[in-house]
């Protein structure tokens, strides 16, 4: 019987049975005999000198096994590393100690770690540590931090400047001189707190006999974690096993290597017992990386007919107190490479100043740099349209890179793979009923105002290739690995270097193997997140798992197929050229009844009683895939809001998203990814804001203060779809993980501003809370 081909089918997820029955294995679920618990004492000050640190009373507390301070780390743990060393930017790399030596630089900076028999004892003992601080003036805003006389965080970084990065394409100044209009606007892309529902944590188990470390950790890239552990703690990679199996969301915040796991490892090595460290949610708010936090001054040059000729950006990026693992690359490369977006804009100029402040370090957060670019671009396009009295849809249509111009080299130097931007715009306009809505809008009176906001976007995804990574200063490759092991019974184990944490690759990768080898999905197990099993992996982020990891898997499958074909030909006593493969069966051309199933071939390959000359036993192949280019998903989102001009409340009435993410392997999973991204993007536009006071206190430090959106804050999202395959990989996939956060913020704010255009309001910064909207209306009404 032919095996059903599952590629493209919305099959149910294979990871779900364990997760819906409470049998998942998240890091906090790891309970080992003799396990101890660690608690990290963190700075309550934004900026302070440590005058005295006395742990003697804590050491006497019940159950306490060890107390670690900066002194105890000397010679054992070099500081936390930064792995994205952007070139030509005067990048400063001040030391990032795992525990503060004599100065704390943000609320949440580590001061000491306590290990005890129980978590409660560790926490109690930490409270008994006596720390005498001398508070210093703090600075949390990046513009204030670079002013003369501002508090200085690091001796190594004068004026708190971490880097100055520039990217230019074409000649913006010439474009501005020749333009009919130049529109200027300042945007604040506020600080966000990723808030994966599972906080971060680790369980370190040191085996004193074999001197091997096993680490369970909430990571998006366990092999990278292993490498960084090895480099910072001096344990050979051969002696480290990192396991990140079930991970409760990441959104970028579980890419970095953190002090928590490093300290747990050290403690386990010293004590010879397993050490568990799980952060609380409050700790997560303070000590797990944040995202965004840009101040952007933007100019756009255009002709009177609506042709956009140039864009110029000067951005101040808040890096927090230290440079986290991938942090420097996020507001530089990942941001500036996308400022011309889907438009044929020949001239761009971008400058980004990275600034140290007394805040939690920032790093990648879903979209990472690209939402910041898309937001400013799509807001500017609307502002120019308004200046020229054009419809927002028309100005976009006029400036799109035409569908017949792909592959297209952008002013920034990227090579867009494929696109049909007008196609998604048209679909979205139709789906939302654009003309009708505009008519409705014209007819409206009263205090409830309808607003329609568009966002047409393109994103750079499938983060690769390694050569580009090297040129950008990323201290690693951006390829991915896959191993396909066909067992003697014909069942398949897939080992992937992608490290899903909710994206469903246990299912979609099985669908890929099913498609390539004709093996039933239920016979395929996808193993991820275990460095002992998987050769190597760069992990899951930047919408790269399917485009890079999935493609590696396709090539590994094809190697298996080629080898199996040779064995089948030998068994059938024909030339390999006379073999055909379909639906899991090798047959002789012209004699379809003569054949061997892939399962039969697998068994023969392990029996190896009769193998073709030069073919080795077994049926297992690996492939390390390094793409030649990125992928560029795109689409059009339209948001419809109703703004109550008396209260400032923004009611999200409709949200239409038409995304083109290339070929779909599992449409149900793709839709889920889009929904989730939308919720986070709309969350940024309307609700979420990481706020510090001037002393560096995190005011939005709990889930009661930071508005992770709830179910009743959203309408039902209306999705449309278009498929323009990517020529960069054999499946034609592009990537879908970040479309929602990249596209949605400008759609929402454009809608809010559109609703208030009659007040003369041109801009409202995110989040557009009722208070902000109301104040904007008041200011406009009173002429202030």
């Amino acid at each position, binding site marked *: 019987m032919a095996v059903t081909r599952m590629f493209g089918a919305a099959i149910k997820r294979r990871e779900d049975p364990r997760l819906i029955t409470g049998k998942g294995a998240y890091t906090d679920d790891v309970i080992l005999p003799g396990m101890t618990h660690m608690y990290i004492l963190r700075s309550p000050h934004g900026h302070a000198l440590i005058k005295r640190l006395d742990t003697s009373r804590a050491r006497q507390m019940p159950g306490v096994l060890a107390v670690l301070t900066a002194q105890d780390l000397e010679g054992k743990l070099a500081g936390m590393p930064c792995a994205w060393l952007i070139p030509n930017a005067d990048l400063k790399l001040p030391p990032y100690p795992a525990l503060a030596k004599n100065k704390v630089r943000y609320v949440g900076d580590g001061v000491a770690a306590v290990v005890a028999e129980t978590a409660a004892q560790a926490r109690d003992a930490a409270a008994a540590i006596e720390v005498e601080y001398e508070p210093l003036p703090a600075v949390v805003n990046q513009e204030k931090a670079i002013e003369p006389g501002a508090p200085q965080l690091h001796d190594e970084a004068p004026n708190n400047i971490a880097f100055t990065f520039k990217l230019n394409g074409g000649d913006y100044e010439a474009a501005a001189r020749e333009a009919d209009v130049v529109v200027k606007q300042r945007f604040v892309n506020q600080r966000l707190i990723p808030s994966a529902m599972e906080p971060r944590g680790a369980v370190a188990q040191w085996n004193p006999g074999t001197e091997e470390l096993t680490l369970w950790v909430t990571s998006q890239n366990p092999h990278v974690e292993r490498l960084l552990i090895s480099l910072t703690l001096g344990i050979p990679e051969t002696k480290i096993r990192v396991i990140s199996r079930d991970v409760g969301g990441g959104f970028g915040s579980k890419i970095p290597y953190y002090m928590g796991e490093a300290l747990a490892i050290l403690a386990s090595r010293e004590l010879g017992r397993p050490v568990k460290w799980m952060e609380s949610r409050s700790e997560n708010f303070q000590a797990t990386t944040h995202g965004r936090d840009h101040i952007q001054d933007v100019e756009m040059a255009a002709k009177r007919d609506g042709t956009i000729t140039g864009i110029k950006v000067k951005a101040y990026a808040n890096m927090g107190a230290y440079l986290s693992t991938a942090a420097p690359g996020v507001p530089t490369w990942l941001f500036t490479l996308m400022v011309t977006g889907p438009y044929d804009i020949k001239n761009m100029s971008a400058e980004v100043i990275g600034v140290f402040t007394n805040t939690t370090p920032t790093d990648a957060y879903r979209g990472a740099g690209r939402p910041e670019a898309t937001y400013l671009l799509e807001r500017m396009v609307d502002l120019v349209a308004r200046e020229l009295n054009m419809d927002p849809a028309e100005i976009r249509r006029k400036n799109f890179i035409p569908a017949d111009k792909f592959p297209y080299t952008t002013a920034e130097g990227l090579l867009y793979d494929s696109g049909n931007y007008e196609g998604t715009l048209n679909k979205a306009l139709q789906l939302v009923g654009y003309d009708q809505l505009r008519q409705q809008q014209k007819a409206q009176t009263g205090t409830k105002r309808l607003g329609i906001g568009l966002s047409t976007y393109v994103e750079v995804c499938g983060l690769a290739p390694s050569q580009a990574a090297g040129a950008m200063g990323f201290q690693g490759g951006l390829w991915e690995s896959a191993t396909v092991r066909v067992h003697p019974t014909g069942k398949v184990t897939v080992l992937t270097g992608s490290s899903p944490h*909710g994206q469903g690759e246990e299912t979609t990768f099985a669908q890929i193997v099913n498609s390539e080898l004709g093996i039933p999905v239920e016979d395929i197990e996808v193993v991820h997140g275990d460095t002992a099993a998987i050769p190597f992996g760069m992990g899951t982020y930047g919408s790269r798992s399917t485009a890079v990891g999935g493609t590696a898997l396709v090539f590994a499958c094809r190697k298996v197929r080629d080898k199996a074909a040779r064995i089948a030909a030998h068994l059938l006593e024909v030339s390999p050229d006379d073999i055909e493969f379909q639906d899991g069966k090798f047959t002789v051309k012209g004699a379809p009844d003569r054949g061997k199933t892939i399962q039969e071939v697998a068994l023969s390959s392990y029996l190896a009683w009769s193998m073709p000359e030069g073919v080795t036993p077994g049926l297992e192949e690996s492939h390390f895939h390094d793409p030649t280019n990125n992928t560029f998903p795109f689409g059009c989102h339209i948001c419809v809001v109703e703004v109550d001009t008396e209260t400032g409340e923004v009611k999200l009435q409709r949200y239409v998203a038409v995304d083109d993410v290339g070929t779909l392997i599992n449409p149900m999973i793709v839709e889920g990814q889009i929904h989730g991204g939308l919720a986070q993007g709309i969350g940024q536009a309307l609700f979420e804001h990481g706020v510090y006071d001037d002393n560096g206190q995190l005011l939005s430090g709990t889930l009661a203060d930071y508005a992770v959106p709830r179910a009743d804050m959203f309408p039902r999202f209306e999705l449309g779809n278009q498929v323009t395959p990517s020529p960069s990989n054999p499946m034609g996939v592009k990537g879908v993980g970040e479309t929602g956060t990249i596209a949605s913020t400008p759609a929402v704010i454009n809608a809010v501003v559109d609703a208030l255009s009659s007040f003369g309001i041109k801009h409202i910064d995110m989040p557009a809370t009722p208070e902000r909207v109301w104040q904007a209306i008041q200011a406009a009404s009173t002429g202030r």
Partner: protein
Amino acid sequence: MAKVQVTVNGQTREGDVEPRTLLVHFIRDTLGLTGTHVGCDTSSCGACTVLLDGKAVKSCTVLAVQANGSEITTIEGLAQGGQLHPLQEGFWEKHGLQCGFCTPGMIMTAVDLLKHNPSPTEQEIRAGIEGVLCRCTGYQNIVAAIQYAAEKMAQQSGQMAGAGSR
């Protein structure tokens, strides 16, 4: 230390705990039922929701000693006789989960919701689960999963009523 005895998922279990121990830690650490998750420390996220005497509660908001003598159902006890509960089935069918961390709390909350309102509207579902945070799904498929379960449970009770009248 205080002795706490509960009936959890139909079994009588007991343990000694410090009086300050939260029910969620008793369930996870003492009883070893790690399907119930801890997602925050302010009773905001709902990941730890269980049924306490049939009512959905955030088990981080209850002291273990307060639960003494009570009946508790956790996600591990929801499937009966190897048969998934209609809500578990709905979450699987409708892609109501991604990372799965909030899922046990979300499902237990929905059990309570459907008990009180067997055929909720979409808005009632959204309002009913607003105490549980999900960062992955955007909630849309969770709503669909609960709708699926409501329909399935209505069918089942219809069949049972039919069987009873025969």
